[in-house]
């Protein structure tokens, strides 16, 4: 896959297929420890241990009965190529948590990509789904909870265009704060400013 935002979209799609009503996405950019950690946790139907251990193996499940696509095996390969790994924690009836770790500065690490558009896409296509997005760099954290938006604006506000205009602005502001913090931490750790925009 092209970038991490598309991997997130793929995992959330799995959650939706698993009848999740709430998905929590957490991204932690730990530049000091050279780690990028992405967690997607849902409250869907979950999997038994046999199935959850087989979803990252492209050969043990057959196409006709597979509930998830090739997204997870590919993501595991990408993570391993970047000195990281992917783990799945799932219990039937409770939900599934997918955790991916990359070495942050690894030259083969895919960029985060256009997370803002991915979030808008997921939220607008699934107004019934509660999305919690949390993105942290050191002590700067951006948090978005569509459950809270619904509490303020009513159940149907996520079907209105005006809500998305406000939402886009909020995400943009949050991400520019994060970008500033990213540059600041980079300079603290490496002693110089990055030559290209780190993503």
């Amino acid at each position, binding site marked *: 896959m*092209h*970038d991490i935002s598309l991997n997130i979209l793929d995992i959330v799609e799995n959650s939706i297929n698993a009848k999740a009503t709430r998905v929590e996405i957490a991204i932690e950019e730990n530049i000091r420890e050279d780690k990028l950690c992405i967690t997607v946790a849902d409250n869907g139907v979950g999997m038994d241990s046999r199935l959850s251990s087989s979803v990252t193996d492209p050969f043990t499940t057959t196409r006709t009965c597979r509930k998830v696509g090739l997204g997870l095996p590919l993501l595991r390969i990408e993570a391993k*190529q970047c000195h990281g790994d992917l783990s799945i924690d799932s219990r039937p009836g409770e939900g599934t948590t997918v955790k991916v770790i990359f070495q942050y500065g690894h*030259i*083969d690490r*895919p*960029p985060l990509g256009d997370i803002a558009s991915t979030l808008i896409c997921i939220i607008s296509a699934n107004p019934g789904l509660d999305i919690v997005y949390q993105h942290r760099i050191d002590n700067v954290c951006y948090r978005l909870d569509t459950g809270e938006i619904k509490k303020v604006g009513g159940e149907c506000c996520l079907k209105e265009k005006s809500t998305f205009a406000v939402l886009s602005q909020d995400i943009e502001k949050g991400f520019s704060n994060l970008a500033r913090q990213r540059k600041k931490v980079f300079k603290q750790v490496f002693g110089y400013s990055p*030559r*290209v*925009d780190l*993503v």
Partner: protein
Amino acid sequence: MKLKEIINYLKLQNLTPKLDTDIKIIGCYVSDIMSDTLANASEGDLWITQQSHQTIVALASLKGIPAILLVNDKRPIPEMVKKAEEEGIVFLATSMPCFEVAGRLYQLHFSKEK
């Protein structure tokens, strides 16, 4: 072979028209894996890839790669093209898939050598 000859022959789109294309291309390297290009591409190579994030410009600059060709109709973000211009790296694009581009370049290269 001159880069401008390659651009004309394959009808490539030049995203950095301000830069000089009258430069010698020694060989080509095809890879979408950064660490592979870092290890195996040579100075003076044309790098064919479909990766379109900023790291490719930084990597090309580090390796002395004078031109990057983005295949499969992949579009770089505008900041990347600006960065390439600053670094003096010619940024090319084509809708052709990698196999076709590499195949035609291979043919061209060897027909010229004879």
